[in-house]
């Protein structure tokens, strides 16, 4: 049903991704994935086919009953020099001591203020610490025949497996043209029912659109440091890393301070009129609310729900982003939030999730709610409603986006409830402000929007009925097979209860 509103140019753009994904040359030639593991680790299944011995066990001695994960945990406690020393013990020790994850951890721990990536993480650490023979630093090269391990192979596999056509071809999120969508329409059709929409004709009017290229950003801010995961690194160093790395879950820039660090960036976009109201803007000190996103293909965010029960928009300036989304309370398969929802356990990378769990969601007999999906291309903007689970995969190198979270009057109740009842999970503010953020907001509303505060105080203290409705747990029909129970992970802990389904949401899932 969304296709009726999809413009042909968007379809064409999405189709380009598909045809590219479908060919062997999906990766740019400069970084086409290797076809075999750099030091020869093979998946365990090959042991049966090859019929030989696994040199893992003989080389571990008394440690052999431990899982690969546990052996790596032992090795994590060694310094880099110790890792270098134990690598000579046996082929097994060599394999574990060269595990790139360990070296990545060391680099990002030891060089939080930035580093120049060199060939791989181990070489990067050696180069950054100016070890002897720095000129000859080369990736681990001793081939280890007959070492079989699924766990160690996984990282390489997820980094190099071609993105499958079936992961990229589904488009189930509404697309609307800004010219034909008033603010009132948007509130009525999308924000109030709390469903996502892609809006065209907003981002392509930003100064950034068309202007922001890698060259442009390097010229204006090449030396400026941005936050990429655990480190702050210069844009120049980041691009060098992004082009050279072979990570399964590559670092990407996700920076809440970009407007201070590179003020021109803030001048190059305008928040869309549809989502202009933000109650957090009334606070004397606004929590983190906007982020710059820069990443190469295969980087992206794993499954999560946005902080503080806020909604968000994400405008793609360059490149393309593939989105997977599930409504509030519908935890994706393979993902388990802790009790209370503060932490989320899931596969190491989104590609691993796709490999292991995506297909299950597409089976005819899948019992859960299928994710909504879309490839959001440069010039388009996605509305991410509060409470929705989402995961994002960048599909092109130099994918640039700006995202902003907000609390509109429609979302105020949910956010107020979150701040009041889950203060320990409040994020985006300095230490010590979490517990008091609700009171800060209450005070700001009393001054600036007393009518909203009055509205808020009715209902939620009585019997939680309003809260229950607000938790937006939805029962939706999948393929006309009847209602599916809202599963755990919602924010109220209430189960059961009749929640009406907005026809819009029903229609969207009905077509999947």
């Amino acid at each position: 049903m969304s296709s009726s509103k999809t413009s042909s140019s968007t379809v064409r753009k999405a189709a380009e991704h598909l045809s590219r994904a479908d060919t062997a040359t999906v990766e740019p030639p400069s970084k086409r994935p290797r076809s075999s593991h750099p030091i020869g680790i093979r998946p365990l299944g090959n042991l049966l086919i090859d019929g030989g011995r696994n040199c893992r066990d003989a080389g571990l001695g008394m440690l052999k009953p431990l899982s690969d994960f546990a052996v790596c945990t032992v090795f994590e406690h060694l310094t880099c020099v110790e890792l270098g020393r134990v690598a000579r013990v046996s082929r097994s020790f060599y394999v574990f001591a060269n595990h790139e994850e360990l070296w990545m951890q060391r680099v990002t721990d030891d060089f939080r203020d930035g580093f120049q990536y060199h060939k791989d993480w181990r070489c990067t650490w050696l180069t950054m610490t100016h070890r002897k023979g720095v000129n000859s630093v080369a990736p681990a090269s001793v081939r280890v025949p007959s070492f079989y391990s699924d766990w160690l192979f996984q990282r390489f596999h997820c980094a190099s497996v071609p993105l499958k056509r079936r992961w990229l071809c589904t488009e189930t999120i509404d697309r609307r043209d800004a010219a034909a969508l008033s603010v009132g329409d948007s509130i009525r059709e999308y924000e109030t029912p709390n469903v996502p929409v892609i809006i065209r004709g907003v981002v392509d009017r930003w100064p950034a659109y068309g202007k922001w290229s890698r060259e442009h950003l390097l010229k204006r801010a090449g030396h400026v440091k941005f936050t990429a995961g655990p480190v702050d690194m210069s844009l120049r160093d980041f691009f060098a890393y992004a082009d050279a790395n072979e990570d399964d879950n590559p670092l990407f820039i996700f920076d809440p301070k970009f407007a201070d660090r590179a003020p021109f960036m803030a001048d190059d976009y305008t928040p869309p009129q549809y989502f202009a109201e933000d109650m957090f803007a009334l606070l004397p000190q606004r929590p983190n609310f906007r982020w710059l996103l820069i990443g190469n293909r295969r980087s992206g965010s794993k499954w999560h729900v946005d902080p503080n029960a806020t909604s968000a928009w994400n405008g793609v300036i360059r490149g393309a982003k593939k989105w997977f989304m599930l409504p509030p309370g519908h935890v994706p398969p393979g993902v388990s939030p802790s009790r209370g929802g503060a932490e989320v356990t899931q596969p190491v990378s989104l590609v691993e999730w796709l490999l292991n769990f995506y297909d299950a969601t597409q089976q005819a007999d899948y019992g859960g709610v299928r994710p909504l999906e879309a490839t959001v291309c440069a010039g388009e903007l996605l509305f991410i409603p509060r409470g929705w689970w989402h995961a994002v995969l960048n599909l092109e190198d130099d994918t640039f986006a700006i995202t902003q979270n907000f609390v509109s009057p429609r979302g105020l109740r949910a956010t107020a409830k979150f701040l009041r009842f889950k203060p320990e999970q409040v994020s985006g503010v300095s230490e010590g402000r979490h517990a008091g953020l609700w009171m800060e907001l209450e005070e700001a509303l009393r001054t600036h929007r007393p009518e909203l505060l009055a509205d808020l105080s009715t209902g939620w203290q009585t019997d939680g009925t309003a809260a229950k409705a607000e938790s937006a747990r939805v029962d939706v029909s999948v393929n006309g097979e009847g209602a599916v129970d809202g599963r755990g992970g919602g924010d109220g802990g209430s189960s059961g209860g009749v929640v009406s389904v907005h026809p819009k949401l029903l229609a969207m899932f009905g077509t999947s």
Partner: protein
Amino acid sequence: METAPMETEQRLVKLSSSQGDVFEVEFGTACYADVVKQMIDFTSESSDAETIPLNLKTTVLEKVLQYCDYHRDNEPKEIPKPLPTTNLGEIVGDWDAAFINVDDENMLYELILAANYLDIKPLLDLACAKAACAIKHMTPDAIREHFNLQPEQMTPEEEQEMLEELKWCTDGGAA
């Protein structure tokens, strides 16, 4: 929502080892291991008095329960990686250091396996740190002997290549 605190405090849970020995422990102790909590949630739907079988030897289960009982009210200290010292007491405190200072090295590996199986991350970290302490200052030869390694012989070329590659840490190093 959750069961009332008083009620959970008094509730006892039965856990049995692979050798059939049954331990009756407080609900809070058993639930320190999330995996056990899930098993309890699962079985208690059918019957309240059921014993949860765990695939752990009696001595190992006893040790694990000791850890859970102590740490349910004492949050374990985060262990920095890499270990700054082999004196674990300085890092994790006296109780944990004494707890993990087991006479039999096999018990240490059994504890790693158990922590891995029951997904008790701080115990896994503690036991792995202890194992790492043993390796930290040993030469490759000492490690081979200590862990009773019988690795496949490398060809002289392979050996040479590896030495060349690892030169950076052996020049003036302990090995």
